[in-house]
């Protein structure tokens, strides 16, 4: 596992995607998987910056990523407000334009793009999001 810390700001999303992308690529994931892993990491980090650290200017993101065998694991830790992704309603993908909800899309994509997504709000504001994807 390699770990890196980022300031919880949208301007670091590029670096977050590059960090997980390089590890995925070195671990033998193909272009399509690499893109989807980067997208999932971006959505996860964006959610934390937007919601967990809402109104907080000095939040930190701790990102760890590694490939073992055919599996990539991404762990994102934050110390902001916890939220339970399972209570966020999934977007209604059949809704027409006027009824289409704008929220929940990031979490929905993370679940679709990765094989497993786990969230744990540990004591003392330690929120741990773990995402796993296996090579096909």
């Amino acid at each position, binding site marked *: 596992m390699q770990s890196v810390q980022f300031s919880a700001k949208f*301007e670091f999303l590029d670096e977050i995607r590059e960090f997980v992308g390089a590890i995925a690529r070195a671990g033998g994931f193909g272009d399509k998987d690499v893109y989807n892993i980067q997208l999932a990491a971006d959505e996860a980090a964006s959610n934390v910056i937007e919601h967990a650290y809402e109104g907080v200017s000095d939040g930190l993101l701790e990102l760890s990523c590694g490939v073992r065998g055919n599996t990539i694991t991404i762990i994102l830790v934050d110390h902001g407000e916890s939220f339970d992704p399972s209570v966020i309603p999934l977007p209604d993908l059949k809704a027409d334009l*006027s009824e289409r909800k704008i929220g929940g899309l990031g979490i929905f994509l993370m679940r679709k793009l990765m094989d497993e997504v786990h969230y744990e709000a540990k004591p003392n504001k330690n929120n741990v999001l773990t995402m796993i994807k296996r090579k096909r």
Partner: protein
Amino acid sequence: MEITTQEFKHCDLITIKGRVDSSTAPQMAQALEAANESGKYKLVVDIAALEYMSSAGFRALLAAQRNCKKYNRGEVVLVNVPDRIREALELAGFTELFKTFDDTLVAVGHF
């Protein structure tokens, strides 16, 4: 991200290059809103050279589509959608909300 707007007789062609994420999506939303504010609701969005788009970009597209389609005054169509972005749009159920074209001139001619 780089964004340019070109005016045609019946529509505006908006070309977006680079990467759209939560950091750059506001700039994209602003360009789409600027077209609306100058009375343009028929928009062709060319993303041939777009390398990446997260759901922040999807949301900007959705907001623009809503505004353009109001009162039947226009719509947003997408042209030259790269495979990876098309797959993510499909996952999000967005491909049904936008007509897509493989040729910029055909898309412009659609209006």
